[in-house]
């Protein structure tokens, strides 16, 4: 990356930012000791349970960890379809 574009903040993110992002991601899995595959399985099971009560917009489901200091929280976001659309869908 050229000096000018670096000064202007254009182009690729800095290697430091890439390192930080990669570390934050890998550490979440290290800390809670869960593999990406297990995470996907958890997401599917959660979705299965929640779907018994609501119509869930599966495209918008996100299961992640949020971190505050060294505390990790499981955060599941599942968009629930409104009643009207639910009725129609039936």
């Amino acid at each position: 990356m050229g000096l000018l574009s670096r000064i202007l903040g254009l182009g690729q993110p800095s290697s430091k930012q890439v390192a930080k992002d990669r570390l934050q991601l890998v550490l979440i899995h290290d800390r809670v000791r869960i593999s990406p595959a297990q995470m996907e399985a958890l997401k599917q099971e959660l979705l299965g349970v929640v779907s018994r009560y609501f119509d869930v917009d599966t495209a918008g489901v996100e299961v992640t960890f949020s971190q505050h200091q060294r505390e990790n929280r499981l955060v599941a976001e599942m968009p629930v379809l409104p009643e009207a659309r639910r009725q129609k869908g039936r």
Partner: protein
Amino acid sequence: MGRVITVTSGKGGVGKTTATANIAAALAAQGHKVVAIDGDIGLRNLDVVLGLENRIVFDLVDVAEGRCRVRQALIRDKRTPELFLLPASQTRDKDALRPEQMVEVCDQLREDFEFIVVDSPAGIEGGFRVALAPADQVVIVTTPEVSAVRDADRVVGLVEAAEKGPALLVINRVKANMVRRGDMLGPEDVQEILSIELLGMVPEDEAVVVSSNRGLPLVMDGAHPAGKAFSDIALRLSGVEVPMTDLSDDGSIWSRIVRFVRQR
């Protein structure tokens, strides 16, 4: 009663032995009675970094197994009379010592010393557990690199699980020019990721290599940036508040310009 400070890292080669030698020497130079213990059994190095390798008779394993008294194994540094070394055994392996034995040896030393600084082997196995067992305070050394920080994070977790936390963080080999151009994690990034208190940051400094060539800890040998950093770390460990040195200010023309502009 002396305090046991264990220096550890997870990943090898990040500067544990360098940090142990310099923190111990700095504490001694600041007037405390200090013993440095080499917990890296089978791969002893603290003796050569401190320049005391020629005077070893007994070692840590001899003490633990009762072949000598702890005082007989201690080597006094003639240049800094308040500094002593308890060397590791070179002929035994990492499993030669059990955690309880290390605790026992340290408890004897607590009576005579203000600070007991323990160097750990790399890794998170037996030797790490032995070095961790007597600790009142754990210091985790890392470099600002992805793999070292990842391993440090693992150690932070293990230290907490062993109820030896919270650990303090030393970031070693910081290259100011790389941080400045966005090619190295800065101390604030590493500290944010690991979420433990920063004890100090140490710049990359050729004088570290020269000092280990000579067996003369940096802090004994004039004003080098890394030596200053270790002296500040030692002061902080003994409860003195010392502001962090801004490592981006490396005396270069560029950093002088930055400082000039910031002061406007």
